[in-house]
């Protein structure tokens, strides 16, 4: 373990010490698109909540692929290698509901992922205009989950809202195809993110969100899934 850390530090020192003699350019990328997520525990919780309805409700959405965006600042270390850091954002959610003439009942879950981490890219194929790169990132993933249940029956109404948070490491790997236009490049990227899952805890009292059928098990967020994004790259001369 210690050897690995030493090798990693040595590699980082070598890369950083070489940077001045090689590429000088900095760049900024903006990406926006769609990302899927597994969220098996939250889908399970959604099924459980639905089963507690006094009527036969329905899950109208269950954590579908939804908006994903990221911003990355990088330095061109070598002709083929870029290194940097950035912020990524994803969101999804689920809803179960029932409504008839006498009232309605609904449960909504909204989950957002804020990821901050390091970015590495390797140019596989470079042409005059077209570049094909492989990239990867290692990030700390902060998940916020809000869970709201509400009912209105005749003249009675009531609701409950809880917020949960989790922290987990995540790794992503993918490829990007960019078309260069002077100081800006446009293209797209696609990849797969592996989230190592984080236990969800109540933001107010820190209590874990437990499995209703097994209180020993804590439910977790899981953003593992593919992503596809449109990407813009701006070169900066710093």
């Amino acid at each position, binding site marked *: 373990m210690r050897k690995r850390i030493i090798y990693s530090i040595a590699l980082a020192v070598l890369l950083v010490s070489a940077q001045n003699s090689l590429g000088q350019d900095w760049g900024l990328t903006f990406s926006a698109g769609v990302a899927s997520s597994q969220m098996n525990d939250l889908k399970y919780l959604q099924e459980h909540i639905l089963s507690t309805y006094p009527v036969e409700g329905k899950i109208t959405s269950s954590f579908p692929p939804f908006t994903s965006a990221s911003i990355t600042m990088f330095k061109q270390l070598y002709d083929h290698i870029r290194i940097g850091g950035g912020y990524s954002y994803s*969101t999804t959610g689920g809803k179960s509901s*029932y*409504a008839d*003439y*006498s009232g309605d009942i609904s449960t909504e879950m909204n*989950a957002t992922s804020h990821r901050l981490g390091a970015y590495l890219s390797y140019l596989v194929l470079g042409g005059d205009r077209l570049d094909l790169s492989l990239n990867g990132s290692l990030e700390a993933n902060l998940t916020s989950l809000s869970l709201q249940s509400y009912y209105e029956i005749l003249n009675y109404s009531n609701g409950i809202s809880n917020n949960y948070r989790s922290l987990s490491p995540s790794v992503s790997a993918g490829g990007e195809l960019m078309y260069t236009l002077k100081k800006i490049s446009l293209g797209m990227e696609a990849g797969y993110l592996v989230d190592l899952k984080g236990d969800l805890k109540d933001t107010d009292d820190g209590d874990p969100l437990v499995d209703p059928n097994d209180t020993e098990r804590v439910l977790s967020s899981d953003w593992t899934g593919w992503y596809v994004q449109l990407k813009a790259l701006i070169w900066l001369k710093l």
Partner: protein
Amino acid sequence: MRTYIPIFFTVLLLSGLHACFYSDSLMYEVEPVPGDPPILSVSTNLDTLHNPPVNDSLEVIYQAVVEGGEFYYVYADVVNTLIFESDSSYGSFWIDSVLADSSGVDTLYMEFYYSSNTNSLADKVNYEARTEILKYAIDFNLGGTK
């Protein structure tokens, strides 16, 4: 032309802002299929009496049976005064002669609430009920008491 480009991108960005927050406005709308309506039968000790007199007081004994449903509540009021309420389908209460200001015939109202069997959300949580109101003429005879 150059001034329009930032405006275009700002509008584009703002128009996409709603997509940054997941939301689902869809509600699963259902038209409940009602079951057979329950049948309520009520019997009281006043059923066979004609204008029963309230000299000092009068006891009313009732029994409600709901076939194919659930009994919720009974209220009784006379001279615009609530004199009894219960969630029991069998019971009794007293009508006191002091309720009336003067002698004469008044009406005892008994309201029975029971399940609607509409299979709606309100029915499932016992918030929706059928009502049946029974009326009995009672004769306040205050000669001896007032």
